[in-house]
């Protein structure tokens, strides 16, 4: 079964994304921040991570910095799903090899799902995002 790790500090967002991905056939785990996500990652590596950016304790960009510093996780497919439309976030995500960035205000859930399948097969794939 395909597995996914949803990282978002908002419990409602985590729950609803987890429910959506479960419905799409994924085995889902969820974490409320980057630190908890690292702990989850150390236990079992998911096929894909869907990552929020603005989170307490360890934000999404800090998480990316740690994850990408490990060779074994250097190619781990990660999709950023953020409420913030900032060039700084885009730039920082790109610097960590994340090409697929979805804005919560304007994306289509079906596009996100397609992107998850795509990056799972090709970690360097770039999805068309809003």
């Amino acid at each position, binding site marked *: 079964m395909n597995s996914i790790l949803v990282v978002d500090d908002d419990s409602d967002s985590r729950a609803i994304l987890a429910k*959506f991905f479960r419905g799409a056939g994924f085995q889902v785990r969820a974490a409320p921040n980057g630190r908890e996500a690292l702990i989850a990652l150390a236990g079992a590596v998911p096929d894909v991570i869907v990552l929020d950016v603005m989170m307490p304790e360890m934000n999404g960009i800090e998480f990316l910095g740690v994850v990408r510093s490990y060779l074994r996780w250097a190619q781990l497919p990660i999709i950023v799903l953020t409420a913030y439309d900032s060039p700084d976030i885009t730039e920082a995500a790109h610097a960590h090899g994340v090409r697929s960035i979805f804005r919560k205000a304007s994306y289509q859930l079906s596009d996100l799902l397609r992107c998850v399948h795509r990056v799972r097969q090709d970690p360097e794939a770039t999805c068309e995002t809003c």
Partner: protein
Amino acid sequence: MISDLPPSDAQPVDQQLRRFRDILRVIERRAALVNMSRDDYFAGVIAGTFPKVEQHEIDELGHEN
């Protein structure tokens, strides 16, 4: 007491209800496209995880009479 407050200058209640029903219809349509229930999808919109309903989506679907 709330009943002592002057009438709101916002939209009349029936217009607000109609608009809310229009929004729900858009959400229902979006939810069906990704095999989710309307209520779950609505929760995602409220949480800010899913995009808000845009006026053009309501217009495309047509208004409820």
